[in-house]
């Protein structure tokens, strides 16, 4: 197994457009999603503190048993702005996410960059990448076009598992949508279970964001930001 990825060979194989680290569409959807998800998390928090208790099953409320009493204050009153912002941001996130996924399939972005190759799934290769991460070694990978295995898995899980689950548990809380498709809510065991899982999946997403930003900081904040903003290949970095 080579210790470093030989960039020139890859560059020769890849079409010219691949030389941009991130395509224009990926860059645009990335930042739109960053803004929309930030708004969703802030407004979700505003909605949550109106009643920071979680329940399991169909129902739950003051005076009844809860699953978890979150260590947050009850903040009554106008969290209405949070609700309106939540749904506006949700529409932007969903439409933007759909654009990204359709592009990723049509352009074969997922296949080329996110699906692990066979060689990357060998025991030895997996051990190597885990070892590198544990020791924070060889993570800079300046100029590498492909993501490493852990990155690929993290991104695939967030895009194809976490976001769909957050959206579906959101749908499960809509009395109008569940009248169209009751399974949206029954599959979670009730409306309150869906609300609780909406919170749990969001916490998982927040953990991903923390790890994502941490890894960017560890592997060269300026180059990574430049790559995602301008698309410049890291090779041109000073």
């Amino acid at each position: 197994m080579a210790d470093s990825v030989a960039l020139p060979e890859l560059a020769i194989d890849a079409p010219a457009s691949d030389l941009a680290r991130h395509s224009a569409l990926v860059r645009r959807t990335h930042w739109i999603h960053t803004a929309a998800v930030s708004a969703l998390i802030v407004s979700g928090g505003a909605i949550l503190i109106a009643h920071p208790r979680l329940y399991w099953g169909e129902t739950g409320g003051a005076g009844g048993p809860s699953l978890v009493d979150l260590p947050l204050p009850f903040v009554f009153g106008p969290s209405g702005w949070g609700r309106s912002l939540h749904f506006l941001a949700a529409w932007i996130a969903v439409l933007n996410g759909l654009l990204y996924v359709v592009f990723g399939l049509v352009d074969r972005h997922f296949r080329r960059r996110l699906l692990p190759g066979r060689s990357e799934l060998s025991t030895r290769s997996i051990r190597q990448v885990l070892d590198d991460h544990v020791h924070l070694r060889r993570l800079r990978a300046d100029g590498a076009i492909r993501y490493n295995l852990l990155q690929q898995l993290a991104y695939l899980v967030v895009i194809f598992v976490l976001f769909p689950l957050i959206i579906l548990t959101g749908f499960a809380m809509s009395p109008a949508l569940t009248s169209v498709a009751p399974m949206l809510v029954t599959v979670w065991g009730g409306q309150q279970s869906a609300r609780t899982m909406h919170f749990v999946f969001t916490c998982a997403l927040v953990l991903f964001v923390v790890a994502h930003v941490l890894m960017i900081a560890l592997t060269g904040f300026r180059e990574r930001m430049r790559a995602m903003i301008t698309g410049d290949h890291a090779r041109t970095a000073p």
Partner: protein
Amino acid sequence: MSGISRRRLLRGGLAAAGLSGLGVAAALAQRYGLIPPDHGGIYGAGETLTYAAQRLLTARHPLAREFTRAEISKVFPVNGPPPETESYARLRAEGFRGWRLTVEGLVARPLSISLAELKTFPQTAQITHQACEEGWSFIAEWSGVRLSHVLTLAGIRPMAKFVVFFPFDESWDSLDMADAWHPQTLLAYGMNARDLPVPHGAPVRLRVARQLGYKSVKYLSRIVVTDSLHEIENGLGSRSPDYGYSWYAGI
């Protein structure tokens, strides 16, 4: 033709197609009643997308889930005190004997119905889930009369687009005709096989099974059928938008 001008032409064409597409979409949305009264402002786009998408998805008027008696909740929290007006206090003191519900506006026969009269209309009951916008919820059995029965008695004029509900306090709200005619939309006078308790909206409250709890207006007094919400109070179809909440609460 040079690459640049071709690209410019293509972009211009796409922009024109996009704009005219938006124009057509807006005209269609207006025609089929897919624009909510609170469509303006920063959040208006989100409100409109949600309302239009859900009205298209619920075009066949599906029913909200119903439950068994065993699933009825043990606690039924409430938000806010009953109306503090003198007229409500007087009616409450005499067991709502003098209470009347008026139905007016775009109707052939304006009505004024007493509680006893309302109870002679065909009764219906439902065990449904009610969620507050804050996040808590309960399941209860509601009994009463379908709103559609009363609307039919009054004779709704064809141009009617909204039904507005005024209670004894300052909160008020409205429904579009899809939810007004929906078989699970009740004028409820019973809860869990007893008279509707005062904290839950006695003597009669609206019950809208496919929207959040705040749409189910308590302490009803007056119903007005209209073709436009512009002239009514804040013009946004409900008091909720004053607090930042959506007019449409199907979420």
